[in-house]
């Protein structure tokens, strides 16, 4: 089975990730997922591709810590975080987050908390490729 936290160039399958999450416990009454995708339009420009750079070792360590923090904070039964690096074309998947809990409320809350925290804590940077050129993305609050 694949690791629960991964940085990878290739695309991921949400079906496989959810199956892996569910395999760990039959007590899971609620699973919340988030998939971040590459938009083809940003800041008034057409975007053809996004390129992700990461401080790999620290990013993976922070993502593992984030998963452990979420499990503890929301009493989750399990959680998974997958983020792609390298080139991602417009329309493709970038990031997958899943939270499994006994009930829906902590699963939903944990899922939102994890993606918000990931954006703050994990050293990954995105560059948008447009017909006019390339530009690193400045984060929004």
């Amino acid at each position, binding site marked *: 089975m694949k690791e629960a936290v991964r940085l990878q160039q290739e695309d991921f399958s949400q079906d496989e990730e959810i199956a892996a999450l569910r395999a760990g416990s039959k007590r899971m009454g609620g699973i919340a997922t988030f998939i*971040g995708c590459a938009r083809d339009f940003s800041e008034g420009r057409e975007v053809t591709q996004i390129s*992700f*750079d*990461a*401080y790999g*070792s*620290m*990013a993976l*360590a922070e993502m593992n810590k984030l998963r452990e923090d979420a499990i503890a904070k929301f009493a989750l039964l399990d959680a998974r975080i997958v*983020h792609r690096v390298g080139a991602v074309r417009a329309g493709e998947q*970038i*990031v997958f987050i899943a939270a499994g809990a006994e009930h829906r409320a902590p699963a939903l809350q944990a899922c939102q908390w994890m*993606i918000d925290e*990931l*954006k*703050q*804590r*994990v*050293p*990954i*940077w*995105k*560059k948008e490729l447009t017909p006019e050129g390339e530009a*690193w*993305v*400045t*984060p929004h609050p």
Partner: protein
Amino acid sequence: MIKVLFFGPVAERVGTSEAQVTFKAGMRLQDVRDQLQAKYPAAFEIVCFAAVNGEHVRDMSLPLKEGSELVFMSKFSGG
């Protein structure tokens, strides 16, 4: 030696993803930042965070050791 890594927009402004700084006894994180900022001022305009050996560090007076790995980073934009 101290190994310094750059990623994303900072690496682009520095022009490379890695630099070496000669270690001196008593050297602190701020000393390396000052040295590199003088060399790459445009890159350090967007530096917001520092990490030493893969851990976030806010105290710029942190003493460094020979062989430390430093990273000066801009705001993250993953997800």
